[in-house]
């Protein structure tokens, strides 16, 4: 049977180059090994192993009670996960595509998020799923709905950009006592690889990281656009513009200190995100800088984001819709001139 081979592919213990997708799988596998309170719940996650194979092999290993295939009922998935958590379980709920998370919007924003504040009921659940565009998934399989939830007190919202962070943050999310939404940019699933440690580790929720040091301006980004920003920064360096690149990693709670520290050094800030412009995290960062570091700003906060439209399907349209390296370069050069 193929089980043994599959298991070795997700065995911990070997420090190897792993994809983003493999890192997610490893995190779930290891957390389920570590703690029998961890269960998976979602559509097609068991026998099929998930639409993106993130839970492949987990049913074989952990059985029907811990890897629960559900009907197409996102509200029921989130609601049941919440109910399970009340008895001390730590469910990881999968949205097959994160676009469908809005089908469970009420359950998440009104039930799950408010429980601790209102009646002292923690709900240690993780809701995770593949998000983002650039893969021609069209308007209903490419969404970046993170900001609906960043606006909801009581949730934590994570959106990592590297396999190392994905694994460490997912583990931290499972162990957190709060409901955590975990966005996985599907463009990154198989496109990037990274060596990650063989031993157990977590990455703290709510901490941004400086991916590249620089002194002329700060580029703040996350998820797939973090890589676009790094590519742009490398090119800017050739022109003599040293951009510092910050990877937010967690959007709620937002690591204001890392942002402010960088801004004090560079005095200029460009935010790059794949989410649409209006109501995106860039606006929030602009407000924070105005409130807390107005005197340090030597130029306007600039934004490179997706257009304020649904995600279009045709490659030509989607390319126009999404931010890219050229758009980042253009904005960075403009900002550097201030």
């Amino acid at each position: 049977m193929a089980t043994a081979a599959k298991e070795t592919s997700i065995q911990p213990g070997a420090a190897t180059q792993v994809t983003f997708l493999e890192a997610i799988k490893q995190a779930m596998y290891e957390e389920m090994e570590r703690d029998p309170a961890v269960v998976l719940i979602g559509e097609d996650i068991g026998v099929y192993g998930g639409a993106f194979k993130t839970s492949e092999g987990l049913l074989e290993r952990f059985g029907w009670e811990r890897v629960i295939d559900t009907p197409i009922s996102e509200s029921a998935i989130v609601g049941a996960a919440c109910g399970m958590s009340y008895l001390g379980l730590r469910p990881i709920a999968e949205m097959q595509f994160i676009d469908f998370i809005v089908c469970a919007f009420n359950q998440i924003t009104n039930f799950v998020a408010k429980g601790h504040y209102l009646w002292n009921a923690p709900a240690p659940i993780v809701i995770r799923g593949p998000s983002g565009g650039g893969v021609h998934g069209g308007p209903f399989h490419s969404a970046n709905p993170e900001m609906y939830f960043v606006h909801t007190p009581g949730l934590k919202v994570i959106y990592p950009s590297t396999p190392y962070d994905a694994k460490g943050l997912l583990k931290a999310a499972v162990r957190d006592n709060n409901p955590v939404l975990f966005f996985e940019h599907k463009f990154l699933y198989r496109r990037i690889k990274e060596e990650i440690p063989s031993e157990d580790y977590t990455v703290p929720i709510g901490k941004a990281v400086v991916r590249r040091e620089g002194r002329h301006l700060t580029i703040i980004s996350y998820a797939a656009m973090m890589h676009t920003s790094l590519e742009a920064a490398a090119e800017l360096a050739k022109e003599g513009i040293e951009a510092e690149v910050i990877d937010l990693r967690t959007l709620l709670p937002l690591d204001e200190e890392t942002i402010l520290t960088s801004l004090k050094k560079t005095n200029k800030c460009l935010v790059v995100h794949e989410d649409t412009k209006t109501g995106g995290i860039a606006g929030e960062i602009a407000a924070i800088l105005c409130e807390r570091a107005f005197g340090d700003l030597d130029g306007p906060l600039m934004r490179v984001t997706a257009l304020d439209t649904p995600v279009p399907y045709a490659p030509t349209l989607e390319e126009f819709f999404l931010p890219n390296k050229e758009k980042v370069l253009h904005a960075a050069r403009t900002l550097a001139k201030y």
Partner: protein
Amino acid sequence: MKKELTKQQYLDLYYYMRLNRAVEDTMVKLFRQNKIVGGLYSSLGQEAVSVGSAYALEKKDWLAPMIRNIGALLVKGVPPRDVFMQHMAKYDSPTKGKDGTSHFGDLENLHIVSPISMLGDLIPVMTGVAMAGRYLGQKIVAMTWIGDGGSSTGVFHEGLNFAAVQKAPFVLILENNQWAYSTPVKRQVPLEKLADRAKAYGISSYSVDGNDVVAVYTTAKEAVERARNGEGPILVEVRTFRRLGHAQHDPAEYVPKEMRAYWEARDPIALYEKSLTGKKLLDAKAIKDIGEKIDKLLYAERDFAENSPMPPAEFAAHGVYCSGDDCHKIAPKWERPIAEVTPPKSSVAAVWTVKGFGSGKASDGGSAPIHFGDTEKHAKDAASAEEASQSANKPRGVKALAKKLAKPVAAGRAARKAGR
């Protein structure tokens, strides 16, 4: 199956209905004195529903009330002062003033899940509670209520459908009080009998007179025990009537006079008092004594509630997040061997065993997950895969466990047999 109640049980039901009504009467007074901060929702005439159904639960069982189920909370052990303080937004209330009405819970001791105002959301949540209880081996039953109006929500369907496919030990009381705010049930649901909702999910149901507390209790008890024994979720329609408006502000003039008169003549407490008196379980003196006992209790409870302070303003900023173990130490209470749900014992062949749908191999890339047709070949594949896994030093019992755990997805059998 229905057993005669003990004298104590008869009297408990009576006491809790009286207490339920007295608590709500007290709150009407508090409301008129402007001591209740928000709205006040009455269950006048529906006491038998809350009391009779909640009384069918054991202490370890879980319930989640709706707004007209104060009686269920009292039966589960919530002191009246908590109900008063919730409505008065006091700092000593279970939510410390952050929410009102019956919107509070207790995960640790009483096993109560708080409702929210969005109807139906509790159904998948309590399904999850039931599933977690089964997973942990606790043999609990989860119960919640939904109104005739709330049964039209999407999440009612999602939740009950999921509970049904999971055969979760869950009892849903469909409290048909004929009115969803101002809209009559006929405009809400195109069914004569709301219990027929159950047919859509292939689950058992009952329809019972909601103003007969003994009928509600015995039916709920039977449903609870069937759910506990693995028969899956059960829907119990209780037919009753909302005697007052949606809330205190609403005179409910849209309700036909004859309808109101019919139900007012069938007051559940008056009916039950008559029945108990006929059975010689109650007499005028006992009735008076119980009334005095409740008055005395509620006087003290109300006094406590009124003396509780309002929450300090800055408390509004606190408690959005759990800060960790210092805030909540989360630990499931296992009542079965953990080894049953951890490898190697938990390991199974990832193959559907749904009769009539064939069985497809899992995700090893070769074949589609579910094949229509060619059923035998794939059943054979599955069997040989299981054998292979056995011979590859798999521990004994994996096959049996796999079969046992695969039961709930066996649609044909699921409808007839009790599950795991």
